[in-house]
């Protein structure tokens, strides 16, 4: 027996950043929003005792448990996919705040090049530069068009930062100044200056000073407490939906939150959706929540899975290249560089925040000439002070065993004597990397799990070698006595360790090459908005959240236009 609930203006399927932004914007505009969230409700009080590496970083206490459902994974279509079984291999948000509670809050924008990657690559290097099996496409939005929404996200989240001289132009400075300059970061800057690069301090949602955002929500000043990414912030100093957009939505009186509500289907009627079906996971009761607009805000995996389970849109078929749902999946869990060992120096490596760091973009996007390299795009060269926890961090030089006397001695000696410089790099889509439903494994309720098929391609290795070399040079210039590059594995390991995934319901300028338009509105189902990094046609070089936040802000304008006009596509296909 399913209970049908009266229609509301908008229903969301998750209450992380995407769900929070939708709830805040739509309720401020006077619409009723029901926020469905499979997890519990959380507040800052949940984080008062969270300086505990074992519970939060090893056992992933704040994250989604995998006992009821998970992903399956394989490298190629020839392999049989296996379920990701352990919480240490698949980190997903749950509860109000979602991943926005335990993110590190590095808050980058993508580059103008990202949004027009295909045309700009062809313009500068010719079509021959793009391999046949690579599916890059322009996003259907330019940097100029998305810029105001980036600003909106940054203002809401209180992002602390300074201008990156090599990034796209900004219409407003960061709302709060950058985090402090640590001695290690000063070393990074000095070395980068000597090498002729353009270092800057990375933008952080670990807010540098008390800040009240345009919605009237106040964030406190970051205490550099070190328990940040993977943890919640007990000071309310990390930008998180539960201290920003969710309270904003609640203040309007037009928002209703329902927790422990697992959305299992999108309900449709003809070429419209009419609401969603969800299950109270405590009681097993099922409900149909009717709505004029459905906003999928359940992160890419469940966004795509709900579309496939509900038979909305045509599933992508890698054999024929037809279909769109599941296409252009990109994973971004390969953040590698090099580690430098310093014999004479000891650093306070136990001090950190989730986004304390410096970087340069001289080898990112199309900021350098790719004529003589065998790849396109690039990565950011960066160093972070995250607060090195003692279980996870045991740096030892090569050829040291991973246990026993020598391991112990060296890992203790080098614990505060190493610095790592890494590069986050872009991941571009290929024909054979995609999402689909698994034919074997099911969730607790009998629905197929989502299956990830993903592996690296030649350009990924070329890009890696190039950037790895830059990281090595940077550390050498910083005076490291020994620099050890991080090897790239031959195949993607299937460890999904910080929610960096894109694609599956990609955006574009026409239904021929995309599932949604640049308002995240589904071309084929006008009242269905698919919000989040599922819309990314490729994964840009750095962390995704401001880009997905900006697209979600734009999506809320689309929802309002749709509701006001009583229907229709907000933008026509080109």
């Amino acid at each position, binding site marked *: 027996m399913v209970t049908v609930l009266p229609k509301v203006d908008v229903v969301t399927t998750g209450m992380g950043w995407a769900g929070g932004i939708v709830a805040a914007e739509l309720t401020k505009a006077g619409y009723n929003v029901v926020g469905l969230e499979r997890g519990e409700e959380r507040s800052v009080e949940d984080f008062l005792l969270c300086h505990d590496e074992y519970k939060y970083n090893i056992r992933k206490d704040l994250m989604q448990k995998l006992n009821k459902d998970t992903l399956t994974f394989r490298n190629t279509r020839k392999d049989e996919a296996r379920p990701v079984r352990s919480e240490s291999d698949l980190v997903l948000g749950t509860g109000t705040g979602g991943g926005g509670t335990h993110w590190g809050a590095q808050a980058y924008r993508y580059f103008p090049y990202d949004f027009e990657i295909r045309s700009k690559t062809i313009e500068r290097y010719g079509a021959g530069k793009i391999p046949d099996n690579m599916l890059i496409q322009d996003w259907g939005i330019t940097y100029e068009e998305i810029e105001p929404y980036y600003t909106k996200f940054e203002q809401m989240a209180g992002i602390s930062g300074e201008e990156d001289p090599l990034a796209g132009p900004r219409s407003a400075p960061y709302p709060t100044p950058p985090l402090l300059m*640590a001695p290690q970061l000063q070393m990074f800057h000095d070395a980068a200056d000597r090498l002729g690069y353009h270092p800057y301090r990375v933008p952080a949602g670990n807010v540098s000073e008390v800040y009240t955002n345009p919605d009237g929500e106040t964030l406190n000043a970051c205490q550099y*407490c070190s328990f940040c990414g993977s943890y919640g912030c007990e000071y309310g100093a990390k930008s998180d939906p539960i201290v920003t957009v969710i309270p904003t939505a609640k203040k309007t009186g037009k928002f209703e939150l329902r927790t422990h509500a697992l959305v299992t289907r999108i309900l449709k009627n003809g070429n419209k959706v009419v609401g969603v079906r969800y299950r109270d996971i405590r009681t097993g009761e099922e409900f149909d929540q009717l709505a004029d607009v459905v906003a999928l805000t359940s992160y890419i995996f469940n966004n795509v899975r709900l579309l496939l389970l509900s038979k909305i849109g045509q599933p992508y078929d890698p054999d024929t290249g037809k279909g769109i749902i599941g296409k252009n999946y990109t994973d971004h869990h390969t953040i590698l560089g090099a580690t430098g060992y310093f014999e004479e120096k000891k650093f*306070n490596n136990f001090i950190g925040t989730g986004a304390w760091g410096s970087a340069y973009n001289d080898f990112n996007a199309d900021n350098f000439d790719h004529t003589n390299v065998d790849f396109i795009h690039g990565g950011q060269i960066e160093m972070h002070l995250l607060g090195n926890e*003692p279980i996870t961090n045991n740096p030892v030089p090569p050829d040291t065993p991973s246990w026993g006397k020598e391991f112990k001695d060296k890992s203790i000696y080098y614990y505060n004597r190493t610095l790592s410089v890494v590069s986050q790099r872009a991941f571009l889509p290929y024909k054979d990397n995609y999402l689909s439903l698994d034919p074997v494994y099911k969730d607790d309720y009998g629905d197929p799990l989502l299956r990830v098929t993903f592996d690296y391609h030649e350009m990924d290795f070329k890009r890696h070698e190039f950037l790895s070399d830059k990281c090595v040079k940077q550390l050498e210039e910083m005076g490291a006595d020994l620099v050890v590059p991080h090897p790239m594995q031959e195949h993607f390991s299937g460890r999904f360790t910080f929610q960096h995934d894109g694609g599956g319901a990609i955006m574009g300028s026409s239904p021929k090459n995309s599932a949604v338009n640049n308002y995240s509105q589904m071309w084929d189902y006008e009242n269905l908005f698919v919000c989040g990094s599922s819309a990314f046609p490729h994964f840009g070089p750095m962390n995704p959240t401001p880009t997905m936040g900006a697209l979600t802000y734009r999506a809320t304008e689309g929802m309002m236009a749709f509701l006001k006009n009583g229907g229709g596509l907000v933008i026509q296909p080109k």
Partner: protein
Amino acid sequence: MDEGKEKILDKKSSRRSFLKNSGIAVGGLVLGGTLGSLFTNKNGTQGPVTTTQNGGQPDFTEALQFFRRTSDFDTIAAAMDVIYPEDSNGPGAIALNAPYFLDKQLAGQWGTNTYEYRKEPFQEGHTPLTNGAIFIEGARKLKELAKSEYDASSFTELDEEQKIAILQKLEAGEVEMNLISSSAFFGLLRNVTLQGCFCDPLYGGNKNMDGWKMKEFPGAQMSYLAYAQSDEFLVIDPISVGGHKH
């Protein structure tokens, strides 16, 4: 070496000689006066160490929740102590109480893999065993190897080099095990050893925060704002989550 640790070691060796010298019958409960109570297994090897703290009061949480056979516990403990041995830096896994940490973890949801996806089929490389079952299987395998390789009645009896040789075989995946590869078992054992040495002491490991002290890690401090720009290396007394006052 810190004082408490020396005491533990003294006690261990005196227990050993006590057992040897007195020739006490195997399998029974021995009331050892100042040595505290201790169990022996069939082979007469030493049982769990009852360490004392707080002016000689026993720590009653240093008892077994998960393991039924003390010989299984001792075997795993001895292996952990080879993985993270005592040295001039400070205590090893046993003195840091890593084995008790493991026992407590196995008694809880982690021991039964409650929050993992457990549906069949388990393909090659995925073990159907729970973490609890893996450690029992592992302990028995270590004992068996001690016997087959060195004709010893227990793993704990082996000298350090012999223990290392056995662990290296496991690590290399060269040992046949039931429903799990020996390298997977070893990887798990190695990881839980480090967890037990460096977790918050609230879990029963990292005793006295000695693991953190070795690494000069200040533990669960509330704020480093005042130190964020310090050029000097800071040695700060660690605190545990249990020391937080909110």
